[in-house]
Every structure is written in structure tokens, then in C-alpha cells.
């Protein structure tokens, strides 16, 4: 019989589990129910009792690694912690969030346990034997895969399951001890890219994608980069949207051209960028497969504003395409959003 372990970690505050961890708890519950398997949850990264407070209602066995060294997200310590939890649970299937923290270490952990790993998992289906779905070739081909070898580690993508929400209650958490491994790395904190303000908001309802058209010559024969910057920032302020960009637009920065000062490669969507998840997406001044097909892969409702009535990439991918000047439309949008506030 399978034994399932869900690995979960604390958020930056150290006081709660990440939402993504709680989504993976749901994935674990569903899989355990389907397979009639035992479920355990292993916690890393903070005060176990506090972190586990909503988990007793899962009915799962709760395990945790505590200690100062394990609070920071770092390969050597996180790998040791996840290895110890996986061994303690004697798990045959280990589910973990595909977060930056766990993606950094989980393949190493699988290797230490003589196991195998698959990552970026969307959903886990199948009957007696689990089958996992994921994308290949940067979100262009989808596949369902399986493995017969155990232990099998699966990193589940954010937004694939609803987050587990349980009543807070006293949690009985078994403390797992592990020797602190030798570390040569000290984590000193976080740094936001050099930009005027934070434009990436993973929790936003809307993704606003800006393309290179914003910095190109406009019908009057001139570029209007400064105005473009003001309009885009104005829209982000008014709507609370997260900002994505095409590669062509962010790349201009490193080639010495004038470019929107608040954009970095972290904003880039597409094959060599991110494929963020938001319920809605609005693409502006973009052309091509990257921003529309790949960058939009996990976007629910999609609209685009483009001057190009023949852009084949929006057809079949967007719900609505407005053939119009994005400068004019976004200026009007900003007026309306300001009036609404």
C-alpha cells in the first residue's frame, strides 16, 4: 500500500505555512483518499506547533523539523530536513509544493532516498496507480506520466489545487530530529530588483502584459517611451494588476536603448520567462506566440489590445482582441479607474 507524505514549509514570516503548501495538502488528501493510503504531513521552516495549527482536521500524522538552522531556505539544511522527514514517514509518494524553496532541493532529496522525481505537476489522476500531468517544451506540449518505482517525489505547481482550510486546534506534532549538516551558505535576506516599485503581484486578479510596441515608433513617427511608462504604471496603480512583459521589451534595457525603468527580466513571460497564473490577462502592444500562447498558458480570461488586425497569435488564444491604439485606450482606462476610486 502507498504511504503518502506531503512536505510543507513556512512563509517568509515563519508564522504560517505558504498557501502553496496548503494547496499541496489538498492534493495529498485527495490522493490518499483515492488510493486508500495513509497520509502524513511533514513541516519545515519554523515553529512546528504554530505552523501545524490548522492541520489536525486533516487526520494526517504530523511531523516537523525545527531549529534555527532550518528556518532559512538553503540547500544543505532543507535537503537534510526533507530527507529526514521522508525517511521518518517511510513514504512511497512524496508531494511537495513546486516553490522556489522546495524546487531547489527536492531532486537531491529524491536521489538520497533512492527515489525519482517529477516536477511542475498540474493534477494527479489515475486509478489504482497515480498518473501526473505536466507540460513539456515550455508549456507547449502536455503529457500525463507515471512511474512504477518508489519513492516517487512529485512537485505540484501553484494554483493546481484549492488551499486546505481547517479549523485551528491543538496539533500533536512529532518532532523529527536531524543533525544540522555542515553549511557554507548564509542567507542574508531578500532584494527587490532595482526598480522604482514592485510590479510583480502573484495574487493579482489581472496580468497586464506589455509588449515592445510601447517603445516603437507610433503613427506620428515618434517614440513615446516616457508616456508609455506613465500609462502602464498608471494602469497598474489603478487596477492592482501584476506586470508581465515580452522578451523584446525587457531586452531593450540591456542593449542601451531607452526602456521602461520599472521593467526587469523577472517581469518577462514566455518560454524563457514566467508563465504566471492569474484569472485574467490583458496583453497590450504584443505580437507573437510567446506572450500570447506560452505567457498566457495559465491565464483564465484573456483580452488583447493591438494595432495589428492580422496578428495570428491572438486568434484562437484570446477571448477578445481590440484593434486599437493602446496609448489611447490605456489613457482612457486610467481616467475611468481613477474616477471609480
Amino acid at each position, binding site marked *: 500500500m502507498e504511504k503518502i507524505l506531503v512536505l510543507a514549509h513556512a512563509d517568509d514570516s515563519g508564522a504560517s505555512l505558504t498557501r502553496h503548501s496548503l494547496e499541496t495538502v489538498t492534493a495529498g488528501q485527495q490522493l490518499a483518499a483515492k488510493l486508500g493510503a495513509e497520509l502524513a504531513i511533514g513541516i519545515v521552516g519554523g515553529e512546528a506547533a504554530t505552523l501545524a495549527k490548522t492541520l489536525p482536521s486533516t487526520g494526517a500524522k504530523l511531523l516537523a523539523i525545527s531549529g534555527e538552522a532550518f528556518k532559512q531556505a538553503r540547500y544543505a539544511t532543507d535537503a537534510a530536513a526533507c530527507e529526514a522527514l521522508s525517511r521518518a514517514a517511510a513514504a512511497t509518494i512524496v508531494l511537495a509544493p513546486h516553490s522556489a524553496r522546495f524546487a531547489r532541493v527536492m531532486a537531491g532529496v529524491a536521489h538520497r532516498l533512492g527515489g525519482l522525481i517529477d516536477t511542475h505537476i498540474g493534477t494527479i489522476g489515475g486509478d489504482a496507480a497515480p498518473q501526473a500531468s505536466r507540460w*513539456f517544451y515550455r508549456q507547449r506540449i502536455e503529457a500525463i506520466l507515471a512511474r512504477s518505482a518508489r519513492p516517487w517525489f512529485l512537485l505540484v505547481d501553484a494554483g493546481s489545487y484549492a488551499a486546505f482550510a481547517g479549523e485551528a486546534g491543538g496539533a500533536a506534532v512529532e518532532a523529527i530530529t536531524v543533525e544540522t549538516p555542515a553549511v557554507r551558505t548564509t542567507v542574508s535576506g531578500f532584494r527587490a530588483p532595482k526598480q522604482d516599485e514592485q510590479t510583480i503581484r502573484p495574487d493579482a486578479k489581472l496580468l497586464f502584459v506589455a509588449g515592445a510596441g510601447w517603445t516603437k515608433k507610433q503613427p506620428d513617427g515618434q517614440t513615446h517611451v516616457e508616456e508609455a511608462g506613465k500609462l502602464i504604471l498608471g494602469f497598474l496603480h489603478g487596477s492592482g494588476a501584476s506586470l508581465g512583459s515580452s522578451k523584446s521589451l525587457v531586452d531593450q534595457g540591456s542593449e542601451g536603448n531607452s526602456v521602461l525603468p520599472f521593467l526587469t527580466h523577472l517581469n518577462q513571460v514566455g518560454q524563457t520567462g514566467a508563465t504566471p497564473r492569474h484569472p485574467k490577462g490583458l496583453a497590450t502592444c504584443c505580437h507573437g506566440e510567446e506572450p500570447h500562447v506560452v505567457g498566457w498558458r495559465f491565464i483564465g480570461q484573456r483580452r488583447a489590445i493591438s494595432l495589428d488586425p492580422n496578428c495570428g497569435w491572438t486568434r484562437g488564444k484570446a477571448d477578445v482582441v481590440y484593434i486599437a491604439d493602446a496609448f489611447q485606450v490605456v489613457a482612457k482606462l486610467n481616467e475611468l479607474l481613477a474616477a471609480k476610486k
Partner: protein
Amino acid sequence: MPHALQIVVCAGIVPDPLQTLEPATTPAGPGIKNEMVLPAVLDPWAASALYEAAELVKKNPGSKLWLVSLGPKAKLQQVMMTVAQKVAFELVPVDGPIGGFTDAHATAAVLAEAIAAIPALDKTRLLIFGGWESATRGAGVTLQLIGERLGITEQFQGVDQIDLREDGSFEVLERVEGGKHQVSVCTAAPAVLGWATGNLAEPRNNPQIGMANMRTVMPALMRAKQVKLDANTLSYVSVSLPKQQRETRVEKEMTPEAIAAEIVEWIGKDN
């Protein structure tokens, strides 16, 4: 004081991202239709790693750069014609299959073995670079597995920057959630760094570098060891192109005012 580094960059080759891809069934399992004839490029994120490595080598005299690449010999040769024009390296080719549907554990085992076999490699100066995810499998696990196999437990993923310090320690910026970087300092090599975009533009072609590289690239390709990759019980239930085709409403006549009003209403709705 400069530090003489030994940097090994692991970089695969992938279909040019601008190609249309179609899955196909091959005797070895799922693959890409016409995979061998599709134009190929060096995996983009691994290419960032290569350019960053070359820059570090340039700044630290006495350093050396190897490029370890697994792929069919003929394809490797084709891609190296371009890559060799960009930065100086010694190629360590391994002749074997490419593609996203192979098992990363098998790839990592082959690459770790190729790295371990590099003569006179000094682990105290070793940095293993590569892309944090490939453009084919995109799993983000190969470098980690190589690190584990070589006993390197200082590892970083989604790296955009490395700053080497006087004392040989280095600061690393790794991408984390929410458009931020995690900042870490590692006291010394060895370490594994999976690169994201980094900060360098693609170097211009330099025929002199190209000529120097090709003198070693061609013999290395001739000697390349042929390998088979184990599936490690990985099996595919289905491989397909996404089917959802949307009914797109194309609005050509609406005024900016009308469009703006419609969009405001749309983004205000709960679903």
C-alpha cells in the same frame, strides 16, 4: 585578488523556440516530429550560464571553462558551430539522445560521470553551472542531481547574479516568489548554480574565438562517448498538443472610450 576558478557549464541543445512543435511516437517513446531536422539552439537558460561563466573566467585569470553537452553528435556539431563563436571553452560532448521526454535522473547520471572524468579537475575551485530549467523538459532537477552525485551541497537555483569577493566567497541572487531575489553568501567553491536570465546580453560572434574553439571542438566530438539513457520506470500515458481553441471576438471599430469602458467592466467582475 583574482581567483582561478574551474567552471563546468552543463548545457543541452533544444529546438529553436520559434519552431512549431508536434509530438510524435518514436521507437524510444514519445518525441517531437522531425526532431533531428528542426533547427536547434543551445538551451536558452543554460546559454545565460555559459555567458556568465565566460565573464567570470575573463575576470579571474588562470580560470578555465568547460562546456558539457549531451546530444546526438551531428546536432551537437551543428549547434557548436554557432556557440563556439561566442566564448572560449573546452567542449566535453556526450553522444546520446535529446528531448524533453527522457528521464532527468538518467541525464544527470551521464553528465555527472562526464564531469568526474575531466582530467585534473580541482573540486575546491569548481563551480558547476547550467540553466535552472531546460526548454525541453523544464524540470529543474538535472543540476541538483549532478551536485548530489558529486557530493556538492551548496546549491542555488534561478540564479541571476554572482559576485565573487576578495576572500573567495561569493554572493548569489536567486529568484524566489513575488519578483524578488533571495540573497545568500557562500564561503567558497564547490557549488552548483542553476542560472535564470543573468545580466549579460548574448556575446557577439568573434571569429578568432571560433577558430580557437573549433580546433578542440572537432576532435572532442570525434571522441564523444555514446550513451543510452535509462527510463527509470518513467512511462507516458499521453502526450499531446493543447486543444483548447478559443472563439476570438475581434473588435475593429470600437472607439478607445468604448473599449476602455468595456475593459473596466470586465476587470471589475468577479469572474
